[in-house]
Every structure is written in structure tokens, then in C-alpha cells.
């Protein structure tokens, strides 16, 4: 319904522009701006619905089944499932995510040029800073005592960058004042400086849930009739989380007697929350990560979000007459190569590859912010 309305609106505006002179220059400019705002390229036509691979009931059943199985596996064998899931899905889910973002990238930035400049500059610089933090630490550039301050500074920059993007996005939308983001951002910065490590841990736990938001926004546009079903399924998530927390809160902490297990428990916050069972922390984190992987690798492709994964037609930057098909093809092929390299790396030295992956993977965490904002 939404697609038809938007496409119809675009056609009307174009028809008005073609059919005859408009009254006054301002009206013409307004029409041009309206036409420019409508990003026809990233919208699927009515064919999108027929392209869906499953129906709503099957989709809901898959969601609920996957969530329950993920919760059971994460609770039962948290460390083992964490190792296997990162090995299998870390690379591929990044590739699917990158492909999805390319699909959402308009062929011409137009009025969004500044937004994308800030977005890409932020992703690049923040990722570079994040990766260089441990490198500088190991090079003895600063002592470990300053580590919380370094983390707090990085978190502050990230919050301010996202706030800038929100404000820029707000300006593109008519009748929307998103100034409220500033007090919230500054309050988050204050909380971050009080407990930088806990703030970083919160990002670790919140990031997987962003995928669920992406799915929500995508369904709202592509399959609005499924949205209600999806949101009902989402109600199961807090129940499963409460179940995991209740079931595992009194369990003994996991034995982190080797380097790999220690890294996994630390990543889940065992060091920061010493009075909380590390079994519960790792299980919760693994459960959320499995959902994250499931959304990018299974759910979005299932509802036809990315079309055939080898096809470039659904990527405006590639399919547009003035696009860059070769470049996009090269990016996707290189991405596949990186996925294979990651698998080899995990096979050769799992611990080291995991460390490197989670440092570099910050790029995809950051990239989610601007693309999610573009969908709001």
C-alpha cells in the first residue's frame, strides 16, 4: 500500500512537471524538491510482494522458532554456541549487512550529500580510532590507568556524531523538530563519563537489537501487513530474556580457565559485573547475537529485502545509468573474499581472529546508525 502510494505520488509530480507550466517559480521549485525527496530507486515496485519467499504465518513461525531455539542453545551451551556462531556467521552477516546498506544507498545523494559525508567520515574516523586504541596501548603510548578516559572520549565522539546525524536527518523531514536529541545525547555523555566501561558494555548488548529495528522499518515499508505479526512476535523477546535471566541468575560462573573462554566472558561483561553469573551474561549476549545474525542472514533475505544476492539490479548505485556497477561488484566480491579469509583465520587461530574481528567489526556497528536514520 505504502509503495503504491509513494510511487503514485512520484508519477503525479513528474506528470505535473511534464504536462505544463506551473504557476509561479516557487511552486515549480517546491515540486522539484518534492520529486527529489522521493527516492524511487530504493523502492521495490508491486513485484516486491510477489517476490516474498514465505507467507506471514510461516514468517512468524520461523521467527518464534528461531528465537526459542536460540534461547535454548545460548542457555545450554553458551561458550560453545558463541564460538560456533561467530565462526559461522560473523563474516557472512557482515556481507549481507553491507549488501543491504548498498541497496539503501541512493544513486545520487542530492540534498542528503552532507548527511552522507558526515556519516562516512564518522564511520571511517571512529573505526580508525577504535582500532588504534588497543594498538596504542600495546605500544605503551599510554598506561592502562588512562584506558577509561580513552574509552569515554571515543564514546562521547560517537554519541555526538550520531546526534549530528539525527539533527541533519531531522532537518530533511518537514514538520519535525528533533532538537530533543541534544539533551538526551548530553545526558548519555554524562553517564558515559561516569562509567565508560559500562556504557561500552551497554553498546555490546544493544547493538544486536538494532537489527530488529531494521527489520521493523523494512517491514513497515515493504510488508506493512506483516508488521502487526512481527511486533507480536517481538513481545516474546522480553519474555525469553526474563526467562534466561531468571533461569541462569543463580548458576555458577563459567570456567574461563583458558584464553578464549576468558575473552568470551570478558566480552559479555563478567569483569565489570563480578557479582553477576558469567553464565547468565554470556548466554544473554549469545542469544542476542544469534537474533542479530538471524535477522541479517535469514529474515531480511526471506522477505525479499535484498533480492537475489548475486544480482546488482536491486542496488541503485550499481543499476543506475550513472552508477558504478563495476565498483559495487568489486566491493561485493572482495567482501566474499574477506568472509572466506575470516573462516581461514578462525580455523588457524580462533582467539586472535576473534579479537581482530571484534575490533574491526565496529565499522558495521557504526554504519547501522546512518542507514537506520535514513529509514526513519
Amino acid at each position, binding site marked *: 500500500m505504502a509503495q503504491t502510494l509513494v510511487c503514485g505520488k512520484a508519477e503525479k509530480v513528474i506528470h505535473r512537471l511534464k504536462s505544463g507550466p506551473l504557476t509561479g517559480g516557487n511552486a515549480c521549485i517546491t515540486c522539484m524538491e518534492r520529486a527529489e525527496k522521493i527516492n524511487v530507486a530504493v523502492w521495490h515496485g508491486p513485484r516486491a510482494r510477489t517476490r516474498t519467499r514465505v507467507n506471514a504465518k510461516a514468517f512468524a513461525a520461523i521467527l518464534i522458532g528461531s528465537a526459542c531455539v536460540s534461547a535454548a542453545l545460548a542457555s545450554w551451551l553458551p561458550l560453545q554456541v558463541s564460538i560456533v556462531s561467530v565462526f559461522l556467521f560473523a563474516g557472512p552477516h557482515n556481507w549481507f549487512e553491507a549488501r543491504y546498506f548498498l541497496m539503501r544507498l541512493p544513486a545520487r545523494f542530492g540534498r542528503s550529500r552532507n548527511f552522507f559525508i558526515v556519516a562516512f567520515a564518522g564511520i571511517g574516523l571512529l573505526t580508525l580510532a577504535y582500532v588504534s586504541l588497543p594498538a596504542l596501548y600495546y605500544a605503551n603510548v599510554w598506561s592502562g590507568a588512562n584506558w577509561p578516559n580513552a574509552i569515554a572520549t571515543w564514546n562521547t565522539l560517537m554519541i555526538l556524531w550520531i546526534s549530528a546525524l539525527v539533527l541533519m536527518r531531522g532537518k530533511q523531514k518537514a514538520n519535525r523538530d528533533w*532538537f530533543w536529541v541534544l539533551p538526551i545525547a548530553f*545526558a548519555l555523555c554524562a553517564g558515559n563519563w*561516569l562509567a565508560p566501561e559500562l556504557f561500552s558494555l551497554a553498546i555490546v548488548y544493544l547493538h544486536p537489537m538494532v537489527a530488529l529495528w531494521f527489520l521493523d522499518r523494512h517491514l513497515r515499508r515493504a510488508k506493512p501487513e506483516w508488521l502487526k505479526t512481527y511486533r507480536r512476535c517481538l513481545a516474546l523477546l522480553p519474555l525469553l530474556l526474563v526467562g534466561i535471566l531468571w533461569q541462569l541468575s543463580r548458576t555458577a560462573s563459567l570456567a574461563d580457565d583458558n584464553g578464549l573462554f576468558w575473552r568470551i566472558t570478558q566480552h559479555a561483561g563478567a569483569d565489570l559485573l*563480578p557479582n553477576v553469573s558469567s553464565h547468565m551474561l554470556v548466554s544473554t549476549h549469545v542469544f542476542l547475537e544469534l537474533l542479530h545474525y538471524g535477522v541479517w542472514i535469514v529474515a531480511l533475505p526471506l522477505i525479499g529485502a535484498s533480492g537475489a544476492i548475486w544480482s546488482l539490479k536491486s542496488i541503485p548505485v550499481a543499476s543506475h545509468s550513472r552508477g558504478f556497477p563495476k565498483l559495487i561488484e568489486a566491493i561485493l566480491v572482495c567482501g566474499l573474499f574477506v568472509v572466506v579469509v575470516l573462516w581461514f583465520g578462525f580455523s588457524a587461530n580462533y582467539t586472535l581472529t576473534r579479537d581482530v574481528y571484534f575490533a574491526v567489526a565496529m565499522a558495521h556497528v557504526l554504519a547501522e546508525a546512518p542507514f537506520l536514520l535514513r529509514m526513519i
Partner: protein
Amino acid sequence: MQRTLILTLAVCALLASAIYAFADIPRPKSTPVEGKTILYSGLTVTSDPKAYEARLQISQGTLKHLQDAAANSGDGGSMMQRVMHSSTRTIMAGTFMFLAISFAGIWFARSAERRNSKAIAAVFLVAMVLGLATVIVRANAGPPGYIRWQNLPQSLKDGKETTGGVQVELVPGDDNIKLIIPLRKTKGPGEE
């Protein structure tokens, strides 16, 4: 030969005087190291007229908690302690709190025109309820810990139990276990 002997004796005398002088150096004053609280628990002090030795009884559960807390005590104290000892972070947090409140005020003033008076009244009402609740909760806070220990001397004389809170601290060194009771001097009748 004689020269060597004299030289050797002189060196020995010098070494002996050095040892003597070194031994006479006053022991360096050790700066008192602040103990680090790792666990908060309860403590009951009681007397036993039949016992020959003082006894310290710790339940298995408390001992386990104590072991866990001691094992995890390498992170430099609680969050509040770390914040209190980091002026940079305190300043930054305060600055951002100031900015948050300032910008919230600007946003509120900007958007006041679009809001109806009921919404503003609702916000103020919620703020007032939260403020009142804070005051009530604060007013309802329990008495300070030392109050529970005030009757300890009398209770010991009477052979009664006294129970209060206790912070378990880790201090460097190998000294004996020390129990510090927060007793306040009470002024007798007629004392100024």
C-alpha cells in the same frame, strides 16, 4: 704486607661502621594505605564468659562471597569510588550534565508554543512527584550505621548481643584481624 693488613682493617672498620650506621637509620615511616572495601555484611558481637579464646565465626556462604569479592577486587574499587578518585571524569560528567539540562531547557522553551498547558502541567506534576518521592525516600533512610553500635559496651557488660553492619576491607600486610567499631563519645549529664 703491613700496608695490606692496615688497608684491610680500615676497609673492615669502614664496612662495620656502615652497617652500624645503616642499622641506626630510623625505620622509614610507612604511609598508611587505605583499605579497600570489598564486601558489605553484617556482624554480631557477643561475649562468652566460658570461652578461653576469642572466636571468629564465618558462615560458609559469607566465606564464599568473601573469596569471590577478594578475587574480583583488582578493578580499583566500586564505580562510585573510581569516579570520586577521577577528577577528569567527574568534571566531564558534570559538564555534560550541565549541557543536558541547559539544552533540555532550550528545547522545552522552543517547543512550549506547540504544547498545550495540560502537557506542561503533566510534566511539572511528574517532576514534583519524583521530587517528593525522593525527599520521602531520603527522609525514610535508615539511621547511620554507628547508631547500632552505641550500646556495645553496655551490652558486653550485660552479656547481650549487638548486631550491626560491617564493611570487610582488604589491607596490605600480614597483621592480625582488626575490628574497628564506630563508637561515638557520649556526653554525660551536665557535660558541655
